[in-house]
């Protein structure tokens, strides 16, 4: 009976289970778990965007930390320096980052494969240098502190407990939106572009526009996440937006199975937990990330979660197959 349900509605069950678990965690009263899960939720939003871009549309980006950082900095500067309402600042950050992605998207997507990877990497590094060097606006390497909290009608999102629900609210919204995009006409166009750009073109899909739109969408997600990150820490500095974070995002998407939104969230969680566990031992976490990237890409090009999911499907169908 339970197994039958698992077989017929695996996704709905998983969503329900996830929401229940997530809702309970803060009540365990362990502040550490709550704060780790907040960061996971924030990273997951960026990873979901990257998964739409890399997994579904087949376009690599090694500079996604740039969009994340841009969102964070715009929110921080507007709300702290110019005293704009934090929500409005966040909206402005998302709009500006999306516009930026549109602007760079058209020239960048004239490149493919290797060259696209390099161009996005260069983009990430240029923005990172700007965050660090334009002292008068960004506060330079030491960053900006005193970013205000988010609040709704006097209700401050100042404690981890409150912020946790805000972050996961946004994260689940982003997951639901992404799932429905993947299932839509747009999602089919994305997969067509991934499969073969020329074939997609001949069927009337404007590949260039599809790619730029997906980039802009993922940049918007990254800006939401970046803004929430700043409002959570009430502080912003260049360090979290470096090349290593761009690569970490790729690791999350790869571990999660590239073309799977759930996988991306799982990947974000797994990578974060790994680095929490391993970081005390120096840079051991980076060693493991490197190994993971190599091993996963060599053994299961579709990613870990997909590989495990395939095994699970085989297991379930063997158990439930009517015996003849």
């Amino acid at each position, binding site marked *: 009976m339970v197994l039958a349900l698992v077989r017929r509605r695996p996704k709905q069950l998983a969503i329900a289970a996830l929401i229940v678990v997530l809702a309970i965690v803060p009540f365990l009263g362990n502040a550490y778990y709550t704060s780790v899960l907040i960061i996971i939720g924030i990273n997951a939003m960026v990873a979901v965007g990257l998964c739409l871009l890399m997994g579904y549309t087949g376009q690599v980006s090694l500079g996604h930390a740039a969009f994340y950082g841009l969102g964070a900095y715009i929110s921080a500067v507007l709300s702290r320096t110019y005293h704009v309402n934090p929500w409005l600042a966040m909206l402005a950050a998302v709009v500006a980052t999306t516009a930026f992605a549109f602007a760079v998207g058209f020239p960048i997507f004239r*490149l493919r494969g290797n060259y696209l990877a*390099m161009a996005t990497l*260069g983009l990430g590094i240029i923005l990172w240098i700007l965050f660090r060097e334009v002292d008068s606006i960004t506060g330079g390497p030491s960053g900006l502190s005193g970013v205000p909290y988010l609040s709704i009608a006097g209700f401050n999102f100042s404690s981890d407990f409150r912020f946790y629900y805000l972050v996961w609210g946004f994260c689940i919204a982003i997951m639901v939106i992404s799932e429905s995009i993947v299932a839509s006409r747009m999602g089919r166009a994305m997969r067509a572009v991934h499969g073969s750009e020329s074939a997609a073109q001949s069927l009337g899909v404007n590949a260039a526009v599809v790619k730029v739109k997906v980039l802009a969408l993922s940049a918007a997600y990254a800006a939401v996440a970046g803004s929430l990150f700043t409002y959570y820490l009430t502080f912003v500095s260049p360090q979290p937006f470096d090349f290593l974070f761009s690569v970490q995002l790729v690791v999350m998407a790869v571990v999660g199975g590239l073309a799977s939104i759930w996988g991306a969230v799982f990947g974000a969680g797994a990578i974060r937990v790994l680095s929490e566990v391993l970081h005390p031992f120096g840079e051991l976490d980076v060693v493991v990330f490197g190994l993971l990237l190599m091993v996963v890409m060599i053994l299961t090009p579709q990613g870990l979660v997909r590989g495990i999911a395939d095994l699970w499907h085989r297991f379930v169908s063997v158990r439930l197959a009517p015996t003849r």
Partner: protein
Amino acid sequence: MGAIYAVVGLGFTIIYTVTGVINFAQGEFVMLGGMVSFSLITALGLPLPLAFVLTVVLVTLVGVALNLLTIRPARQASNISLIIITIGAALFIRAIAGLGWGKNAQPVPPFTGSETIGFLGAYVRIQSLWVIGITVLLVLLVYLLLNRTLVGKSLKAAAINSRAASLVGIDARTMSLVSFALAASTGAIAGMVIAPISFASYDMGVMLGLKGFVAAAMGGFTGIWGVLLGGMGLGLAESLAAGYVSSAYKDAIAMVFLFAVLLINSRNLAGEEKR
């Protein structure tokens, strides 16, 4: 510096023309060259020529291992997967180096004396002359290797058409291996000659690798001379920018160059990818 970018770019070009892979770990070969020679010279007290040869051998072995363990099993994978694999390798090598050697930049003694000499009204460090001399020598050697020996000709054949090459008995896998070995050894030499000037540190590979790539891209990934010009041009542009604008934006110059080259050439490059 331009000469170093050229040598690093040479490594990119060799691997790219033979295998079509952009090897993100190229900068890590350079870092290993610097760090290994630091250990051999300073910690073990080996004489310079011996340390030089040993370093090249060790780093070349790393390049061979990288090829055998990661590129060969994943040969069927797409370009994107291969890029991600080499990024993973770069992270792995860098982090191990950070754990093993610590995070401090290590001073490496220069090959001969640390004083500067006057030359045409400018003062240059003797080590800089070593850098330029070794670069020229290395470029000549690689040129001769590619154009005058059987191995070089096989490499070129495998690069042009690996199936046709295999028909005349050239094993593409071996050639891929040779290209990694060659790139690793040139990277190691670059690391060794630059370390006395810039210090050796576990994270020196990132920027050097990127700039080497820019040099290679400016040269169009085609030949040795293009890379040489690209590297020199980049080095010149950087020092001009550092002098006239601000040294803080020195690294950004390379990235702006990267964009310019990629976008100007995007039609050619896109065409090449489809091949």
